[in-house]
């Protein structure tokens, strides 16, 4: 499945005064691979994603996207990356089509009008094309966020709880879309979620973070039994409550 590296993080650290939000973590995401980044609230997942997105400067360490250092040529690298996050809202006072148009321009999308037409169809947004984002339902808004996240056909897609607050039916639809995208385009996906069933269904590999460190990594289907836990949720609870029981990677 891994056909190259979409993202390589080496000794990445983020300190806020005395607090180490991310503590010298290293991992990679292969092309065509979906990697789950798991951990309790405050573990450092979003901080890590924000550093990869270039909206938070690391204290030390390096981030390489498609083997290019993020520090150099950030703007060019960002053309190959995109994201969807539950806390990143699309401008509510623009319509679905206007939002996609603006972000298509920002990401330098070729044949933008055709691309928007395709996305509206693929993400079942055609009837909302002229509707303002602010009055969409959670599910519709999530589909818009995802449509924006793939508008530039990114080789690295970052998803921070993309299905949070969605009902199971829409969550499944969103998962399918993302999985299809990763497989179809051979792109790397880094995915955070608190839904362990979702992670098990979608991710090829998971990384467990706690207190800024990566404690565990492996196949989400076999990792729990390797650590004497009945399932991923059980393992998650152990990481959240008793991280010292687990040996750091």
């Amino acid at each position, binding site marked *: 499945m891994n056909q190259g590296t979409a993202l390589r993080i080496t000794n990445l650290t983020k300190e806020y005064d005395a607090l180490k939000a991310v503590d010298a973590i290293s991992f990679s995401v292969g092309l065509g691979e979906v990697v789950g980044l798991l951990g309790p609230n405050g573990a450092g997942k979003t901080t890590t994603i924000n550093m990869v997105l270039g*909206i*938070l*400067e690391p204290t030390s360490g390096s981030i390489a996207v498609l083997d290019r250092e993020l520090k150099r040529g950030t703007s060019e690298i960002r053309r190959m990356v995109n994201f969807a996050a539950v806390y990143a809202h699309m*401008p*509510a006072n623009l319509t679905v089509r206007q939002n996609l148009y603006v972000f298509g*321009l920002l990401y330098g999308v070729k044949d933008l009008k055709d691309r928007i037409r395709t996305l509206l169809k693929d993400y079942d947004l055609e009837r909302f094309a002229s509707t303002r984002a602010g009055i969409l339902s959670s599910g519709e808004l999530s589909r818009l966020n995802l449509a*924006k996240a793939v508008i530039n056909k990114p080789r690295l897609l970052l998803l921070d709880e993309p299905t949070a607050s969605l009902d199971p039916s829409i969550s499944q639809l969103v998962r399918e879309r993302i999985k299809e995208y990763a497989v179809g385009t051979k792109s790397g996906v880094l995915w955070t979620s608190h839904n362990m069933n979702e992670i098990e269904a979608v991710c090829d590999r998971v990384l467990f973070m706690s207190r800024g460190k990566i404690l565990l990594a492996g196949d989400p289907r076999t990792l729990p039994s390797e650590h004497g836990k009945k399932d991923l949720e059980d393992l998650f609870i152990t990481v959240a409550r008793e991280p010292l029981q687990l040996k750091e990677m």
Partner: protein
Amino acid sequence: MSYSRIFAIFVRQLFLYKGNPTRLASIFLWLVIDIVQWGFITKYLGTFGQATFGFVTVILGAIILWEFMARVQQGIMMAFLEDIWTQNFINFFASPLKVREYLSGLIITSFASSIVGFLAMVAIAGPVFGYNVMAVGLMLLPFMAILLIFGIAMGVFVSGVVFRLGPSAEWLGWPIPLVLSLFAGVYYPISTLPVPLQVVAKVIPPSYVFESLRAILATGAFPSTLASNLFVGAALSIAYLLMASRFFVVIYRKNLKNGSIARFNAEAL
């Protein structure tokens, strides 16, 4: 620099006007009220003592130019605040958009809306109050250029302050034109001010514009100080613009380090 990305920032604001025509009030409403109010005041002043002085051209003309500069400053600030109110910083700054492209987009947006506002003011002041926008001839262009650059500098500076201190700092941006107008000689010659305040006026670029404007209209000829006034006014404006841009970039980098861009929204600050 990517023109496509600059256009994205511009077109986003255009969509907002298109989607909600009441936003046009922000361009026209206060300007029209100001021009009508000052138009009648100057007309009234002109009735005193068989005045031969062109109150309309001098006072109303100065106010039109001042409003143009104020709209440039506030236009940049408003476009920037729009991204705060819609919590859009993550989306924008995680995209390939560069800070200078973002600022360029804000500036073009503000310039376009200010020019429209300026034309609206002239369209009212001409037929209704007899104001002649070309009373100073082509010197209007360098005067407007200095005011435009200074307005941009103020707009970028205030946006930087809001970026640093949070959305609640927006109130600092609104009274700036009013405060500066005290020293800029918009309504009265700089010599009217006490000497210490005249020193302040010397570092405010619009003061050179309005002093020159008044001198041309009073004598009908170009004053000997015109060239030096234009030079100093332009040089100061450019210097302020460079400093304001640098200030904004420094704040942006600071926010990159402390995580404010990721957390920046109206609820958090």
